[in-house]
């Protein structure tokens, strides 16, 4: 019985794959035919040699810094907004508010960064400002939820002790709750920053600044040699972030 079911499942998967290929009417003539292949070859050859002129490298350096700045400020804004939303979401103001804020967090989180960026380009104009806002909005949804979970899971006794001893609500939160959750919050923020660096480098495709915008513009102008350098810079950025976070994790998180 289980066996037949598994075979049926396999058959269904094969059918789905076949239907996808037929339904899309994929045109691989560009990859297989001799003429198409030559055309592809020409296009690919345009990327070599990559443009390493000083002026272009300076531009790339500035765009990389812009990407880093977008990701850092986006994450910082998101952390502030996330903490602000996490307090009601953790049920500190009441059940009604918690449900409402959770809905808001879910909505913020489930719209991808790139869609936010396209919206923000409409709302705030082209440039890194839109990218920063887009990162901030999406990440606020993610961090808000993680923060709320962290706040719910932290023991309430220290804060209660401060309240019973006559401390104010803010003092109870700052000295009773925050020290317990602080390391976890920082870990979440750094983890999202890492993601956002990667994301910030492609947000520019919809006009939101950084390396992505540079790549988009140079590809649109058929300057493949310049585009190749930008892609290399993106690759380096991603690999550097991976290596750095892997090292930091080994050094500080897992003992």
């Amino acid at each position, binding site marked *: 019985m289980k066996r037949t079911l598994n075979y049926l499942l396999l058959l269904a998967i094969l059918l789905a794959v076949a239907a996808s290929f037929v339904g899309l009417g994929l045109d691989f003539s560009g990859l297989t035919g001799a003429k198409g292949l030559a055309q592809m070859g020409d296009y690919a050859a345009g990327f070599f040699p990559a443009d390493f002129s000083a002026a272009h490298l300076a531009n790339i350096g500035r765009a990389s810094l812009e990407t880093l*700045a977008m990701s850092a400020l986006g994450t910082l804004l998101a952390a502030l907004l996330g903490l602000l939303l996490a307090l009601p979401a953790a049920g500190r103001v009441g059940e009604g508010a918690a449900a409402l804020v959770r809905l808001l967090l879910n909505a913020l989180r489930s719209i991808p960064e790139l*869609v936010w960026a396209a919206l923000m380009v409409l709302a705030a104009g082209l440039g890194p400002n839109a990218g*920063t806002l887009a990162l901030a909005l999406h990440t606020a949804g993610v961090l808000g939820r993680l923060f709320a979970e962290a706040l719910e899971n932290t023991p309430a006794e220290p804060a209660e002790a401060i309240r019973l001893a006559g401390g104010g609500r803010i003092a109870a939160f700052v000295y009773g709750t925050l020290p317990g959750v602080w390391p976890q919050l920082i870990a979440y923020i750094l983890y999202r920053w890492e993601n956002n660096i990667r994301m910030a480098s492609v947000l520019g495709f919809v006009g939101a600044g950084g390396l992505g915008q540079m790549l988009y513009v140079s590809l649109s102008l058929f300057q493949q040699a310049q585009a190749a350098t930008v892609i290399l810079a993106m690759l380096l950025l991603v690999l550097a972030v991976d290596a750095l976070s892997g090292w930091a994790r080994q050094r500080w998180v897992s003992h």
Partner: protein
Amino acid sequence: MLSASATSGLRDPAALPRLVLTVLALALLWPGLQLSELNLAMLLDGDNAATMGSFVGAFWPPEHGDEFLALLGRATLETLAIATAGMALAWLIAVPCALLATRVLSVSALARGGRPAWWAGALRWPVRLLLIVLRSIPEIVWALLFVRAVGLGPTAGVLAIAITYGGMLGKVYAEICESVDPRPARALLAAGSPRLAAFAYGVLPNAAAEMLSYTVYRWECAIRASVVMGFVGAGGLGQQIDLSMRMFAGGEVASMLLTFFALVLLADQLSRLLRNRLT
């Protein structure tokens, strides 16, 4: 937190280090503020706010004309098909690469306690490097490149998913093969069986469930990616969202975003179901 610790500085021994760290972070972020041209006031600027207000105001009711719903259905099916076809091609890339890259099937490692000879390692390196390059360039960059090379439409999306996810699957498959008990495969290899047979009978029975569940999880990710890739012209739901956004058709954007949520939720449920069934 800063103000609280500053006012009660005498009682808080950690206040000074915190103050220094905060000042340092602010000093580093200040140039970033200039670079990112962050300006929240821009959102509330008269003109921008008015355009955005009318755009968002048109979100309700979501567009639901028959013609539009047919278009939406087609775009949704296209998104699903891009993810599925892309995953199929990615699998074709990943399996041979994983077999070449994994250390489990190394004959020279048999006599050396599981560590391959240096030349065998050197032969595996190019494959690993290829997998790293394939997966380190984000899929949307591949999509942008392929849109230029093969034209607008789903073909670019399928190729982009195939390449990025091929790199990811290949790496993870190779790691899963290395993480299971290596003794059955070693026994088979030592008894003179060919590598493919040693893989099929020594590694696969232990690794298959995990590999399958990871593949299904990646398929779910591919659906989300194929929506996003539409923004650079790689077909599917994303391309339609981009078009409607440029026409400021708020109602259309609203229905498409709702469809996107439904699709992601559905894929999530389906992949959970399949993974429970497979493992």
